[in-house]
């Protein structure tokens, strides 16, 4: 009799498990999942790199490099908290595991250090080369299929943006550089750079 109750219970009970590929788990809103970058907003202030507990973010303002070693990330969310411009956000999308060390790289509008103010044409050339190299890496990684759908789209956008920027860069960047001495306000350096650039072009 005792058993019968259990057996009936078990037969009429719902599944305890999910029929996984068919039935996906809905993750809660507060979940610290996959990152979403709006890298255009980045001002290369380095806050995220300084506060990251594992120190996996590497930023080089001079060449406009924003790089994260994906495997070392703890998904603690500190970088999201400290970013003053809100360009890092965490979505509630499941983050699949990766199997080998990968880098997530973005090209951001460079913000040269005060020393490099007088940077002439050569400097710009160098930047161009670096940007190209970075972009190659991103494409390589994408080709290897290391970053699945969502992140890829984010990155692709970034790459496209970078592409567009690169095409525009030779025209824009030189004047931007020259005008840096006037507009080196840390908060809006990138914007100021653009404005300065267009002003010069006129």
């Amino acid at each position, binding site marked *: 009799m005792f058993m019968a109750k259990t057996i009936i219970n078990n037969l009429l009970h719902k599944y*305890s498990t999910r029929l996984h590929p068919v039935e996906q788990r809905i*993750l*809660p*809103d*507060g*979940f*610290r999942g996959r990152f979403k970058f709006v890298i255009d907003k980045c001002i290369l202030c380095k806050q995220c790199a300084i*506060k*990251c*507990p594992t120190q996996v973010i590497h930023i080089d303002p001079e060449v406009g490099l924003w790089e994260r070693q994906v495997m070392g990330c*703890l*998904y*603690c*969310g*500190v970088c999201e*908290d400290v970013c003053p411009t809100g360009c890092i956000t*965490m979505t509630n999308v499941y983050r699949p595991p990766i199997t080998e060390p990968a880098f997530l790289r973005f090209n951001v509008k460079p913000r040269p250090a005060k020393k490099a103010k007088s940077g002439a044409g050569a400097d710009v050339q160098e930047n161009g080369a670096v940007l190209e190299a970075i972009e190659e890496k991103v494409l390589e990684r994408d080709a290897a299929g290391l970053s699945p759908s969502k992140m890829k789209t984010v990155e692709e956008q970034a790459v496209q943006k970078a592409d567009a920027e690169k095409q525009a860069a030779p025209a824009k960047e030189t004047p931007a550089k020259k005008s840096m001495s006037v507009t080196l306000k840390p908060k809006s350096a990138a914007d100021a750079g653009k404005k300065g650039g267009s002003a010069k072009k006129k």
Partner: protein
Amino acid sequence: MTRSIIPFGPQHPVLPEPLHLKLALEDETVVEAVPALGYVHRGLEGLATRRDYSQMVYVVERVCGICSCIHAMCYCNCIEKLMSIEVPRRAQFLRVIWSELHRAHSHLLWLGLFADSFGFESLFMALWRVRERVMDINEATAGNRVIVSTNIIGGVRRDLSREQMNSILKDIAIMEKELKNLYDTMMNDYSVKKRTVGKGVLSKEQAHALGAAGPTLRGSGWAQDARQLAYEAFDELNFAPVVETDGDCYSRTKVRFREVFQSFDLVRQAIGKIPEGELAAKVKGNPEGEITFRVEQPRGELFYYVRCDGSNFPERVRIRTPTFANIPPLLAILPGAQLADVPVITLTIDPCISCTER
């Protein structure tokens, strides 16, 4: 009689973590056990001196994979005491809520593993199914299942809304009902009793002399719980340490099972009494001086010693974890046991080797 040496662990089906014991046997009876540690040493205490205070919170969380929140809470308390930061009352209550949820899921994990260790697989799954609900609460409220990362120096990072608290209360009610059922099954089952009653007895005097901690100590009749020190919001919450007097595997299991209910009760009380207010106090400057702090982890009393010299990094962080305290009692109760009972007895101290070796 000739003795034979049998290695137990570091890879053993019942052990979630690499504990190695050399067992000297006469026939099937253990006469001596010699532990060997050091398989998961990660040098976190050394790393502590190379990370600044706010980063370190996320590092100490990884000392233990199960009670992460409580490690962070202890560390934050050390730094807050050194810098005389007044933590907002609401933050203290939130810390209690998350830490008690951690205790509940840690004990449920252990109970499941324990059931598995004597071959009661369906009980193991039933217990972990309940545990899953706690994990879901953590995920929805803190953003992650185990490593919640909610503590920061000066307070907490996340708030609980009224709806979230209500859903926690609802979940707790369901879990209590499910667990009541499982409690009766586990504690009255013939085969469970056969494997646990009278096995690995740690007497009251021994427990005290060998410095046992947590449920191992309370299972031997000592009503000692670091939460009685009334850190965080425990001064406003009513609870009495769970005590059993037999000192055998059955008592220790019972203590842990009853503590799950106690944790749920504490969460309910905390949600009932939580005041409105700020989440975190402002933190400025660097701490200076040295301090010790104790909190109750699921496995027992956790102890932090932090020394700072006013620079950006701590000078020394020393972590003493409860499993470290519970290994001498384990070595004392193993002699005389049958080889087949060794896994069961070893598990009853709830060994967390990552904690022990840091």
